[in-house]
């Protein structure tokens, strides 16, 4: 009873591959987020699951049934579009009822019950006679959600449903979608380019990049044990600092020729990349002679500050999170060092950090 993707690929014409060899299992009732930068093929993958786009290679099974050639309506799913896809000439109520009426399998009284229930769930009862054009962006979004809620389909697909909303509304809707998913026990497959949405809502995240699956895992796994440099830098604000490093001995490495740090694991290679999260960097104000970096700018965020600094070598920039009472200003000379909680990547960008080392740290 789950959605299984096996070696799914999509290519237009012969040369342009949009998705390459995607394999995943989406459990029933879970919140599954497909995340990646624009153009990575995530919407295409969702449309392939929905049946709106044909599958070039591979197989998709839903509840044990091969659905490759099944039209969308027979896959028993609903979809919420980025642009909502409301029917402008229908009232809110009729928009929500549209799918149920089209399927004809539900009786009139049941349609009414379901639609009213769905509208109640998204707090739109009072607006049920309005037309979409008389609604605000957030309310239109709710109508689209209500449509998915009213349907009896157990799988719901969402294609960047929040990207047209302003920041505050987005946080609110995020919580509402999450609450709805839990309440209804929906299998929700959610596409977004926003790593925060992915981290906050998902049970499992699939990271897509360059038409390939980079990693599938829980938010914690993805953040703590990213499979490669791309995944590491995609999650976290500000993004992880990636710096070149060389091995000095088994316990010590030299980062970017600027500072040495000890690490509690064996490093298999002599030259590699080290990834340090902004909150694992330590900054200290020093005089010019001992400094290894210069502050470029400081952002005040309330209970913390982000310091952007330029390293002495290789023109590299770093971002560090410090306490909000730390006194840094532009052009200060500073000494940068790091805690032992770092990630190591080989020259191909693959994570070579030893698992237990991170867990224990």
């Amino acid at each position, binding site marked *: 009873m789950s959605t299984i993707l096996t070696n799914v690929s999509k290519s237009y014409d012969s040369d342009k591959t949009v998705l390459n060899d995607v394999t995943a299992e989406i459990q029933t009732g879970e919140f599954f987020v497909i995340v990646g930068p624009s153009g990575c093929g995530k919407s295409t993958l969702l449309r392939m699951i929905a049946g709106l786009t044909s599958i070039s290679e591979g197989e998709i099974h839903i509840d044990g049934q091969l659905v490759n050639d099944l039209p969308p309506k027979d896959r028993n799913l609903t979809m919420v579009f980025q642009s909502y896809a409301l029917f*402008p000439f229908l009232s809110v109520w009729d928009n929500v009822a549209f799918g149920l009426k*089209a399927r004809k399998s539900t009786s009139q009284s049941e349609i009414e019950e379901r639609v009213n229930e769905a509208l109640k769930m998204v707090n739109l009862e009072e607006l049920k006679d309005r037309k979409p054009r008389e609604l605000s962006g957030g309310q239109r979004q709710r109508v689209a959600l209500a449509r998915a809620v009213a349907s009896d389909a157990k799988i719901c697909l969402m294609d960047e449903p929040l990207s047209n909303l302003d920041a505050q509304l987005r946080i609110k809707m995020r919580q509402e979608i999450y609450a709805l998913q839990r309440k209804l026990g929906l299998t929700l497959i959610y596409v977004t380019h926003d790593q925060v949405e992915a981290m906050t809502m998902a049970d499992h995240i699939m990271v897509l990049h360059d038409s390939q699956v980079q990693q599938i895992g829980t938010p914690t796994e993805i953040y703590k044990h990213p499979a490669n440099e791309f995944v590491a830098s995609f999650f976290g604000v500000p993004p992880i600092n990636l710096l070149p490093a060389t091995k000095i001995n088994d316990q010590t490495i030299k980062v970017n020729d600027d500072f040495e740090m000890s690490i509690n694991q064996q490093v298999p290679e002599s030259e590699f990349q080290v990834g340090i999260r902004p909150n694992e960097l330590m900054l200290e104000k020093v005089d010019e002679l001992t400094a290894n970096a210069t502050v470029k700018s400081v952002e005040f965020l309330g209970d913390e500050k982000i310091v952007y600094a330029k390293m002495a070598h290789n023109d590299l920039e770093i971002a560090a999170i410090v306490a909000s009472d730390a006194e840094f200003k532009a052009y200060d000379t500073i000494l940068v060092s790091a805690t032992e909680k770092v990630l190591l990547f080989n020259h191909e960008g693959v994570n070579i950090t030893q698992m237990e080392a991170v867990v224990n740290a």
Partner: protein
Amino acid sequence: MTQIDERAALKKFLNYLLLIVLAIIILAPFFIGIWTSFLPTMDIAKGNLFSTNISFDNYVAAFTKTPILRYLLNTLVISTITMIAQLIFCSMSAYAFVFLKFKYRKTIFTLFLITMMLPFEAEIIPNFATVKQMGLLDNYAVLIVPFLTSAFGTFMLRQSFMQTPIELKEASDIEGLNHFQFYWNIVLPYNKISMITLGAYSFLGSWNQYLWPMLTTFSNNSRMIQNGLKQLQSEETFNDWGMIQASAAIIVIPTIIVLFIGQHYFKSGMNEGAVK
């Protein structure tokens, strides 16, 4: 400051002056026409346009002494059928060109466009020969069948249908609507304004036909109104201009009604809220 205000006021004054002059030039013949339709022919003939002998006599005469009612009925039936047929057939073919994928779609559409570029007058001789062969002359059919569909209508609706957000199609696919349901329940209501535009256009086009009905109809049973109006001029021994003017006014009224109804719908923003 005041200087600028004066200038702006002067500019506004000149703008309005120009608009008023243009409006008078354009509307004057129309109002003179309506006005003369209330005057006795004798006054018109004398050029006495400011006569005060106004009455509805001309209108009564037009309805009682001429077959104008018959012409009106003919034209109304033909125009309405033409309009409905064009709305159905043009929207269906436009739907096919936009939402169905088939071989040679572009080629066939180009053929459609080519027929649009050929003026109707250029096709009139072969068309006449065809309808004559089919024995349709002097019949409603000859005025309807050639105009059941139009390349222009297909072209116009195709452009409009292409603006229909693809998400609406996808959402309908997921709900399991077939092509006809999608066409009827979504595409037509979504493109209501274009449909009304085409409806008004084809109705008026049919209403104002002159050349084709002149060639193909010979009796009052099928004659259309514009030809009927021309007929009034030669049928009378002397031209009863007052009555002809009244008939012309009667003919114009339905077209004005169509335009007013149409205008009511040409409000923008009808489709706001579908996407985004």
